[in-house]
């Protein structure tokens, strides 16, 4: 099944040529063949079997009513909770944690008949842009295993890029879906904040986190989004607004649309290969009938600083529950304080500690106004600038990342790593939907085109992305997997 899309697999299932169990087994062995890249932390085993059975039953009962994801195998990031399956958030401190509940997004996919096969590697607590911060080791990029797949959802991007599963789930707090999608040459969609429930997502930064899909086709990402989206009474921040059916927008093209190109996103810092690919992509969109308009988002530079105050501040509180009392690592010491210090000191990796320290500092007495409060105000400015841009354009188009996948170990300085997120994190600060789709290769490595829409206009973002996808062939490029990695998937 290597490389097949959701639509193709669904058609085979309905023709009776294969079964959910068979597809899951094939996905499993395809994933196992990727071992050298280390994108998988564990297989869901019993759940896979149970869910494949359920999907088979749904298909047998009513093939017409079974949705497009019924029987389709997938993988999900190690920050999503499913009852009975270990979830460790890529961290030693949560190793062995088995949630007694299932999160909403996953529950909806399970109800749609999708079959989870594996839990994917990621940066510890989703903090990172390279997947080098996983406590269980880094992930290799299928296009070049010596390079990073991006992060933090690197494992989820890699397994889709390698063709082992047709889709996977990631989470995006500052670009953690779009940037790895860009680095791995797949579609990665971050919905509007509040569109997909966060219940069951191990929080990094609550006001920024959002669950979304990776897929090789925009249409597939749209299927997954549709299955997950919608109000959830368990998430107070989830939007009660009805979900606009994506199907009504897909396939309508970009003819007559006004697409904004943020000047600040095309400024210095873009690698030449990225600039070239993006320029070609913009030209392509114009050819498809869209009007390109230059817009300005002046607070773009301040967004990075804003993000690196707000996200760490929220994470410093969100990760306080990792205290060794009810779950996870516990390092016993004589006093309570020493037990906390050692449990957390040993349990968290360097990047997580760095962000907790940064966030704690930004919230601490005497610094709150200068850092946290000021960041919240600049966040308002950033959101307003996007609002203003969307008064004149339907969507924004720009690069996802200023660079292509870099070699492992290349960005050991935290600040240089943070700078990689400069084109994705403003979208999270403003709560907007954004997608990255393949739009070229630079020295053999994928470049991603980012499409950004107004709040709750998720369908429009998918429509623009799909129009571009259908007019080009970049999404059909597959990584030249080295022999050690390819193995022999069925």
């Amino acid at each position, binding site marked *: 099944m290597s490389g097949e899309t959701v639509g193709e697999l669904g058609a085979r299932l309905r023709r009776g040529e294969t079964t959910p169990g068979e597809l899951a087994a094939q996905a499993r062995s395809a994933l196992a063949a990727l071992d050298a890249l280390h994108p998988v932390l564990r297989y869901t085993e019993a759940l896979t079997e149970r869910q494949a059975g359920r999907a088979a039953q749904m298909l047998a009962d009513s093939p017409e009513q079974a949705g497009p994801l019924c029987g389709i195998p997938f993988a999900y990031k190690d920050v999503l909770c499913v009852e009975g399956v270990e979830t460790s958030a890529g961290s030693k401190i949560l190793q062995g944690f088995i949630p007694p509940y299932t999160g909403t997004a996953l529950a909806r996919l399970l109800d749609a008949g999708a079959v989870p096969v594996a839990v994917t590697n990621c940066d510890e607590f989703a903090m990172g842009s390279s997947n080098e911060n996983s406590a269980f080791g880094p992930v290799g990029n299928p296009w070049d295993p010596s390079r990073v797949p991006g992060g933090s959802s690197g494992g989820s991007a890699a397994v889709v890029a390698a063709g082992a599963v047709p889709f996977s789930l990631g989470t995006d707090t500052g670009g953690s879906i779009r940037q790895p999608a860009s680095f791995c040459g797949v579609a990665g969609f971050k919905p509007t904040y509040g569109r997909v429930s966060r219940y069951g997502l191990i929080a990094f930064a609550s006001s920024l986190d959002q669950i979304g899909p990776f897929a090789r086709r925009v249409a597939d990402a749209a299927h997954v989004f549709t299955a997950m989206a919608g109000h959830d009474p368990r998430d*107070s921040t989830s939007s009660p607004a009805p979900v606009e059916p994506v199907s009504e927008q897909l396939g309508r093209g970009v003819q007559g649309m006004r697409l904004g190109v943020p000047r600040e996103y095309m400024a210095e810092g873009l690698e030449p290969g990225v600039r070239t690919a993006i320029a070609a992509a913009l030209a392509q969109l114009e050819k498809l009938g869209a009007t390109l308009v230059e817009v300005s988002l002046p607070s773009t530079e301040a967004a990075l600083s804003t993000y690196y105050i707000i996200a760490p501040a929220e994470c410093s*509180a969100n990760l306080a529950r990792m205290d060794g009392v009810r779950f996870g690592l516990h390092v016993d010491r004589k006093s309570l304080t020493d037990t906390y210090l050692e449990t957390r000191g040993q349990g968290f990796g360097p990047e997580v500690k760095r962000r907790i320290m940064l966030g704690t500092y930004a919230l601490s007495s005497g610094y709150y106004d200068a850092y946290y409060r000021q960041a919240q105000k600049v966040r308002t400015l950033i959101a307003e600038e996007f609002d203003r841009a969307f008064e004149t354009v339907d969507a924004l188009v720009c690069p996802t990342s200023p660079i292509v996948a870099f070699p492992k170990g290349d960005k050991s300085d935290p600040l240089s790593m943070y700078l990689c997120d400069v084109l994705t994190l403003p979208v999270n600060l403003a709560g907007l939907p954004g997608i990255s789709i393949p739009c070229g290769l630079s020295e053999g490595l994928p470049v991603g085109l980012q499409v950004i829409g107004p709040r709750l206009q998720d369908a429009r973002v998918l429509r623009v992305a799909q129009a571009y996808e259908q007019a080009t062939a970049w999404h059909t490029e597959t990584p030249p997997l080295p022999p050690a990695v390819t193995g022999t998937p069925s």
Partner: protein
Amino acid sequence: MAHGDAALAAGGDGDAVMTVTSAVSTLDQVMQRWEPVIGLEVHGQLLTQSKMFCGCSADYIGSPPNSNTCPVCLGLPGVLPVMNRVAVEYTVRSALALNCEIPEHSKFDRKNYFYPDLPKGYQISQWDMPLSLNGHLTFTVDGEEVRCGITRVHLEEDTGTLQHAGDILQQARSSVVDLNRAGVPLMEIVGEPDLRTPAQAREYLVRLRQILVYIGVNDGNLEQGSFRCDANISLRKHGDTGLGVKVEVKNMNSFRAVHRALEYEIVRQGRLLDQGQTIAQETRGWVEAKGATISQRSKEYAHDYRYFPEPDLPPLHLSAAFVDRVRAGLPELPQQLAERLQREHGLSAYDAATITAEREDARAFEALVAAGVPAKAAANWLMGEVARLARETRIPLPGSGLGLDGLASLVKLVETGTINGSTAKELLEELYLAGGDPAAVVRERGLGQVSDQAELERLVDAVIAENPAAVADFRGGKEQALQRLVGGVMKATRGRADARVVTGLLRERLAP
């Protein structure tokens, strides 16, 4: 230095335990030199069905350890809070009863600190935009009216509970956590430092508790901790307007404990100040068995709660219509009710205050009066025999077998002269739990008062004939001998005779 203070003076750290007698003996002296400034912080659990942010029960008392928990109140990774609307409403109701303003905009914040009874490592509370502000409570102590400002009433979540193996925290080898209570809606009522004596502090709490119970948001149980109080207390020279170094006192589980702990602190701080020492700003715990407060030493490095807006909860926007609706649902408050009972039924201030102390009693009173019982009689029965039986049986009148209707019918039998007071008391005792129609019982057993003049005269004559000694004593000037004769008649009627009538008849017959 007053005698008995050697330990206190020698230690100087304020941890030595003073004897209660010495505290009492010098309290007045200290208060002549120093003025206590007291502010109380009260936490009240709200009587909702479910917890603040999840569906577990808010009533956790008696549940097996950790059986009243779910992923949300356990603080498991990945879960999110969803606010309980009724908890918000109850807080607003309380705030309105305490004369607070309800700002249109408010929000929840995270208060960050580590402790094993706090599952998430932060408490969801309210910092700079609480649900209400600027209220007050007015009450009377020793004839003096006291008005205590209420800074704010805000909403937060309760913590779990810790038990220590070994009874003293500092000596425990191991502690265990029960999260049944974690997440129960908890209202914090922050009072201004407007109180000047332990008696004022106590009365403030009594009134506050009464209001919360009246309006149905809290059960007022200090022992079980559904109503809890911490006190901030400092001393200053009379006439000063600044504030001294304040000490926070915790662990007071009764009104009496609050009173005693504050007295203790006043004496302790007064003596230290008299000796020219400074007061350490600290938290101290009241230890009932020792009758003393003890410093709760903690190496907790300077507190810094790092409050910030709770990103998992959208802010609150309470419209005027919402607030008006809650206001309209407020029942009559105890003070208003007491005033009305005085006005409408001529009760004394004392009786009105006693009758309105508990809402149940006030309701019973009004029901009795409505049923035709005279107000004074209704008040006397409720405050006397009924209160005693309710206390002894631990069953309040409305839940008793007799019930309100039964009591009304019983009291009316007395008022109409059908039975006398002692018969009524006996019947009340008998029927309070068992129930039954008092009028029917009186009829069946012939308990009606003997008021037939001829019958009584016959009995009086018989008793005079049977007790020549008593008759002689009485005629010889021994007044109390008459009681023996009255007793004889009462015995013959099994207590059903009207004692006043019998006494009159006897005097008539024995008149010289």
